[in-house]
């Protein structure tokens, strides 16, 4: 049975998708409305034109990218549905259901050796390149120009990134020490904790809480144009670039606490990228919005988030199958979205698949800020001690992004908040050099049998497990070299979804065991050039 709403629409708004009308509950996201309307197929992937649908509902993956009112690549899981909106599917030749270029997927069943194909004859090579150029890209250039938006400036003693339990503990502890504190949260306070069925403490009154505010990058630099007219300091100054609904904020904190949490990353199995394959949080967010993703839901993988999602799905009246081991899944099939999951010869009919890999830390911002990172065998984490100290004296980290949970994480977060407040007061913290931990051996695990469908290790760039294997065989054995050779982590999500999976897969394929992820570069989430165009206003050309 297709997805359905658990309650009648109360305050519907109407918008169109490729010209067809869809109803949404006022305030919900475009992607939620589309799923509720039974539309899980929202576009086609970049290389193989495989069907794409929403998968994370956290603004992290490429699944829900659509053209909205003339703007390409809008993450529709983050965009509120409004009356009269014109939404279009992308990267389609023909219709999104019958895309002519989906032939590429069929033609290269295991993946494509795009480095070496058609290199024998010059004329053929030139034709191939012309065709490749024509079909490249996802989405088309925006219809109109967008005027530059000036950033805002602010200063604060302590910036805490992440509004989960650790972030709140840290922010409250720093505020109790007398520091001015900002707490920024990309969504709502406690959103991820709620998905685990946990609560979070209330923010103390002196903490300035900014929900819907994403930290997009951490920078240390000299010579950055000041708008306040102050003389430029000679020493590098730390800036954190924040983005909210009004544009960018250039924030200068004296100390930083990163409490960005962890998430269930991508898992490798045949057909893992198909519409209808969701993360546990995605299934829960749909339920919170009153949408049940399917009547029969197959579970793949393991972990507390998956268990929680299974329980809530059952409570909402769904039937769950499994959980199945990812490596045992032979195919996920059905058109336009999931209809069955096949293990060996057995086809399990289902309407959706919820899959979860071991949690991986949200390490990107901490990495940019100068904290050390480490690999725990399953994914990357921020290297921090029990006081939340990292390799950088003004950067603290706490909670799940450091691999700590529960009371230990809460204590660490309070220590981190106090430490950050002391740094902001000008006290030099006790020296901490995290010993460079030798990388944990990757949990090699069994690799999936890719009998009949692609096992996708990077969905934004359509990189298959087979292509990764090919790269290792040719000597591109470490994470950076294999990234460049296969293209994983170079697409929309810049590796947030796939790097931990690729590190595990590389180790299992006999490549180098990772001790660091790919360089964490800004921005955390794509930022429009118009918002960046007035960051420097010193009147200079260069």
């Amino acid at each position: 049975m297709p997805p359905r709403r658990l309650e009648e629409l109360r305050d519907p708004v109407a918008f169109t998708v490729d010209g067809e009308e869809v109803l949404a509950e006022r305030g919900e996201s475009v992607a939620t409305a589309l799923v509720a309307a039974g539309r899980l197929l929202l576009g086609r992937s970049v290389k193989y034109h495989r069907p794409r649908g929403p998968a994370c509902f956290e603004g992290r993956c490429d699944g829900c990218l659509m053209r909205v009112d003339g703007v390409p690549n809008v993450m529709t899981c983050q965009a509120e549905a409004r009356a009269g909106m014109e939404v279009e599917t992308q990267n389609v030749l023909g219709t999104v259901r019958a895309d002519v270029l989906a032939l590429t997927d069929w033609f290269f069943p295991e993946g494509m050796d795009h480095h070496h194909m058609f290199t024998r004859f010059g004329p053929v090579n030139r034709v191939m390149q012309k065709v490749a150029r024509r079909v490249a890209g996802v989405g088309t250039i925006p219809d109109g120009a967008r005027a530059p938006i000036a950033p805002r400036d602010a200063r604060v003693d302590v910036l805490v990134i992440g509004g989960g339990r650790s972030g709140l503990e840290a922010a409250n502890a720093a505020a109790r020490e007398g520091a001015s504190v900002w707490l920024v949260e990309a969504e709502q306070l406690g959103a991820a904790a709620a998905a685990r069925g946990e609560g979070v403490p209330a923010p103390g009154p002196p903490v300035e809480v900014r929900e819907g505010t994403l930290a997009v990058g951490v920078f240390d630099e000299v010579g950055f144009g000041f708008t306040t007219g102050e003389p430029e300091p000679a020493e590098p100054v730390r800036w954190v670039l924040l983005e909210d609904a009004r544009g960018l904020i250039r924030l200068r904190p004296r100390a930083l606490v990163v409490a960005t949490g962890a998430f269930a990353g991508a898992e490798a199995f045949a057909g893992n990228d198909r519409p209808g394959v969701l993360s546990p949080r995605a299934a829960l967010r749909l339920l919170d919005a009153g949408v049940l993703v399917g009547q029969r839901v197959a579970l793949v993988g393991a972990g507390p988030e998956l268990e929680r999602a299974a329980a809530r799905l059952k409570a909402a009246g769904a039937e769950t199958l499994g959980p199945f081991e990812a490596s045992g899944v032979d195919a996920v099939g059905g058109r336009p979205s999931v209809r069955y999951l096949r293990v060996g010869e057995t086809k399990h009919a289902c309407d959706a698949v919820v899959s979860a890999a071991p949690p991986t830390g949200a390490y990107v911002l901490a990495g940019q800020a100068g904290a050390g990172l480490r690999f725990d065998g399953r994914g990357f984490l921020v290297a921090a001690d029990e006081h939340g100290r990292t390799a950088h004296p003004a950067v603290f980290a706490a909670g799940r992004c450091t691999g700590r949970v529960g009371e230990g994480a809460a204590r660490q977060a309070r220590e981190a908040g106090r430490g950050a407040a002391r740094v902001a007061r000008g006290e030099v913290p006790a020296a901490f050099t995290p010993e460079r931990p030798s990388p944990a051996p990757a949990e090699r695990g069994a690799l999936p049998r890719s009998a009949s469908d692609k096992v996708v290790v990077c969905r934004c760039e359509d990189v298959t497990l087979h292509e990764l294997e090919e790269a290792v065989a040719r000597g591109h054995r470490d994470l950076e070299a294999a990234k460049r050779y296969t293209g994983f982590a170079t697409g929309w999500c810049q590796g947030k979804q796939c790097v931990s999976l690729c590190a595990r897969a590389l180790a299992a394929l006999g490549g180098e065991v990772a001790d660091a992820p790919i360089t964490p570069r800004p921005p955390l989430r794509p930022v429009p050039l118009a918002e960046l165009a007035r960051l420097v206003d010193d009147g200079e050309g260069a």
Partner: protein
Amino acid sequence: MRTTHGAHDLPDEAEVVVIGGGIMGLSIAYHLAREGAGRIVVLERSYLCSGASGRNGGGVRAQWSTERNIRLMRESLQICADFATTMRINVWFRQAGYLFLARSEERAAQLEASVALQRANGLPTELIDAAGVKKLAPVVDTRDVVAASYNPKDAVVFPWPFVWGYARGCAEQRVGIFPFTEVVAIETDGRRVTGVATKDKRIRAPLVINAAGAWSPEVARLVDIDLPNRPHRHEICSTEPLKPFLRPFVADLATGLYCSQSMRGEIVGGISNEKVPSGYDQRSSLRFLGLYARELTRTIPRLGGVRVLRQWAGFYDITPDGNPLVGRVDALEGFVLACGFMGHGFMMAPVMGKKIARHLLHGEDEELFERWNLRRYESGELLSESMILG
């Protein structure tokens, strides 16, 4: 076929050791091997594509302001055009020309002089007006464009496969390529090079080539030679991939802005930025993002709604006179330079690798190697080049 090896396979002896596994070092090694130079070893201290060869914008152009550069780059363009079929790897060579915009009379006059020189050297470069620009690149805002130069033969490539292509070409000729292998010492007998040492191995060799790019001054310091080149951090960024809408590579020498739409559909580009930390700081800056976004949206206003996906940084290898440091070093026999290529070492490597190999083995191109020799910094006969971007 596997192209690289682990440190346990390092030989005791080689005819040539190349320091630096970027496109320059690999191109030299490839051509030396083809010319029969004997056992060659390439030592790279990180992974392949870790340096500037893996971090540049992939522009390949013959529009330069000196006859030497124009002629060399015309040859390099031809090598790039044939690379996919000769080296059997796709480099996504796309010949849609470079469009240099001039927004002042002074810049226009400079371009005009360069165009005349380029045409005299066989390039089809044309000086065009704003309407001509509009025709070639409709998305460019031409309101303040005074003139532009356009050579339809200039091109853009995807840089990484050049490195892999040369690496495989090397491996097929039994050149040993060793990533994650840093040279910690260069050994001499006081007058000539006798070999190099890595952390756990000594390799005897009479010829050592410094192709370490921005790190070449550090390599030269191992033998107490002070090179005049310095690293300069250059940043670059990439937008979300979009269907093709911009054909030529667009550049503006006044601001140092440049951009092109890559084979994958992203707008990839950079800009001059004088205020960068000295040394080897490869982190990203907000200032770069601001400068680039400001000039790019001025030049192509419709990009305002297009998003930046990633910014990154690499090093230009800057020489005081904007020209490379190439050839034998007088002070130490057997020590050869192939560095100081500013921000265009990538596009020059295909032709320079060949020329350096033939020069070393057969003494070809004496004039070029005389002019680009390190000794010009002692004699004071410095050179010039005004069409440097970034």
